[in-house]
């Protein structure tokens, strides 16, 4: 699955996106994998919302490898 980083998260990951092959997984598995790759994200986890295929999802969401998953830090438009 494609994992997208936005806002200040890009300053931590130094990349805008990442491709993972995880098979079907829940959000905890996904987060564990992402934080293993980018430990600097850990302190921000509670403030980050996940979007799957451009829709916000809750912590009960399931993800598959064809999904586009975005890590959405607090927004600041306007």
């Amino acid at each position, binding site marked *: 699955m494609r994992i997208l980083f936005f806002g200040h998260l890009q300053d931590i990951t130094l990349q805008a996106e990442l491709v993972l092959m995880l098979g079907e997984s829940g959000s905890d598995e996904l987060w564990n994998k992402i934080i293993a790759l980018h430990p600097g994200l850990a302190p921000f986890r509670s403030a980050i919302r996940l979007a799957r295929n451009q829709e916000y999802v809750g912590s009960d969401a399931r993800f598959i490898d064809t999904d586009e998953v975005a890590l959405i830090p607090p*927004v*600041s*438009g*306007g």
Partner: protein
Amino acid sequence: MKVDARLTDLPIVSDTHPALSPYEVGAWTEFRGLVRAEENGRLIRALEYQAYPGMAERELQRLLGALLRKHACLAAQVIHRIGVVPVGEAAIYVGVASRHRKEGFALLSEFMDGLKKDVPIWKRQALSQ
């Protein structure tokens, strides 16, 4: 009911008037959020905005459409600028056509609150003077 939501990387040019029947529109309310020269106590020359394209437009559209129905307004347009926005220029424009002013004011205020909660757009960095 008409909702128009878009991003642009050029200076914002809004529709000058609601493209609607004058039979109904009694109030036309507009808001522009401008980049200020002071950001967190330092002088800047521009802000750089980033969006999650696709999702940002979709969330703008969803939010504006929901508020249009909730407040029984007639039409609304939102344009958010992305990329480098110089000081004094608009980062966002919102226009609302309604029968009476109160529902237009209510929509505008709630829209801006919702924008700052749910629409995936970020102030990416402030460019110093």
